[in-house]
């Protein structure tokens, strides 16, 4: 399982490196979305630093949706699907590998967006650093859940539009927990509780994925 995971993860990251979609497209999109959120809220509210965590996660979520989409579209072409199916890869490994690749990409994006929100949304630098561990866990959970939902919606008609519909409600709790823990970090509150909740979510989603990813891929 672990070998398969590493193999799949390396493959996904290599495809990413080759196309550089993350660097040239996803990151600018994230920065832009951050700015747009500021615009949509108007200066008075956006300047208000308490909106920072919420906006940060909102933008991260949008970015994650793009990246999940891409992570699945790589597998989707009919020919690829059939011939990769004949490799008989361990689905749990595929799931973990894809999640890991997605998580790495999300971490990079997350750190940059965090820096962006310190600059743009006046989130306190100290708070952002304190929040970093919880951000990492949240993004990992997002990656794991995203891989699961990505597989669920891939292939069908208009998969690109189906994904957000199913995923948004599922990700909302993660978003809320992440936002809460971020806010707690900002106000020097106890973040351990949120940490725990997020870790549980991460573990639960991973377990579900390991058990059920095979069912999703079957056909």
């Amino acid at each position: 399982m672990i070998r398969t995971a590493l193999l799949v993860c390396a493959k996904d990251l290599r495809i990413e490196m080759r196309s550089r979609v993350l660097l040239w497209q996803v990151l600018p999109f994230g920065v832009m979305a951050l700015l747009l959120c500021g615009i949509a809220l108007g200066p008075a509210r956006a300047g208000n630093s308490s909106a920072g965590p919420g906006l940060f996660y909102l933008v991260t979520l949008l970015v994650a949706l793009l990246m999940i989409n891409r992570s699945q579209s790589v597998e989707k072409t009919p020919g690829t699907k059939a011939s990769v199916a004949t490799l008989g890869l361990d689905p749990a490994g595929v799931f973990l590998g894809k999640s890991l690749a997605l998580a790495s990409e999300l971490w990079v994006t997350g750190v940059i967006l965090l820096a962006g929100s310190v600059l743009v949304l006046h989130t306190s630098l100290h708070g952002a650093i304190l929040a970093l561990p919880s951000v990492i866990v949240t993004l990992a959970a997002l990656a794991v859940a995203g891989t699961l939902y990505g597989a669920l919606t891939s292939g069908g008609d208009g998969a690109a539009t189906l994904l957000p519909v199913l995923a948004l409600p599922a990700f909302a709790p993660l978003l809320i927990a992440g936002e809460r823990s971020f806010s707690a970090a900002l106000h020097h509150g106890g973040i351990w509780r949120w940490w725990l909740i997020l870790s549980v979510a991460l573990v639960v989603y991973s377990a579900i994925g390991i058990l059920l990813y095979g069912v999703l891929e079957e056909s």
Partner: protein
Amino acid sequence: MKQLSQRLFGPLTLTAMGVNLVLGLWIVPPDKVQGELARLVYIHPSVAWVALYVSFGTAAISSALYLWKRTRSVVMDRVAHCAMEVSVVFIALTLITGSIWGRPAWGVWWVWDARLTSSAILGVLALGYLALRRANDDPQLRARRSAVFGVLIAINVPIIHFSVQWWKTLHQGATVFTSNRTLLIHGIQAWTLLISFIAFTMLFFWILRYRYRLEVLRENIAGASLEEALSARRREGAQS
């Protein structure tokens, strides 16, 4: 004549930059309100002017010329590309100098202000232009698409500028000129400011010229390897 002016352009630019720095950093007395900090006024506004208008203008005009059938040539495409690349650097510099100024002046790195927001948006647009170029590897398709985008950006510059103003404004506005175009600052300060604008504009074109030459060199190298690629490809046919 043309040769001479070309050869003189570099030294002239350097001189202008030098004069600007010397005047701005040492000769001009510190500002009454902002103190030494105000010296950024000889860098930041002119950098911003280049970033927003000169470079985008160059890119937009050459894009439009590319789109017009009669002036369509690879030169226009290259100029647009290089100008946009240089523009990214200048926008970054605008943001950096502005933020450096903003931190002591306003107490924050960033505010939700018309100028700042529109500068950032334009930065993303310039990056988008470069991303668009990367996404297409057929040279003619790439040239056409980026030319269209170059024109679209040009329309966006005023739209963004005004829209962000309609949306809300709070920033340092007309410090140098009032709305009826009367000069608010005088003497050596005004002259230094003028020189800084000229110097940075010249700097832009200087860099642009070198960037352009680099591009041509790169294409020549590609052309040389093209000959090689052609004969390798032809050999493929001979083998079978």
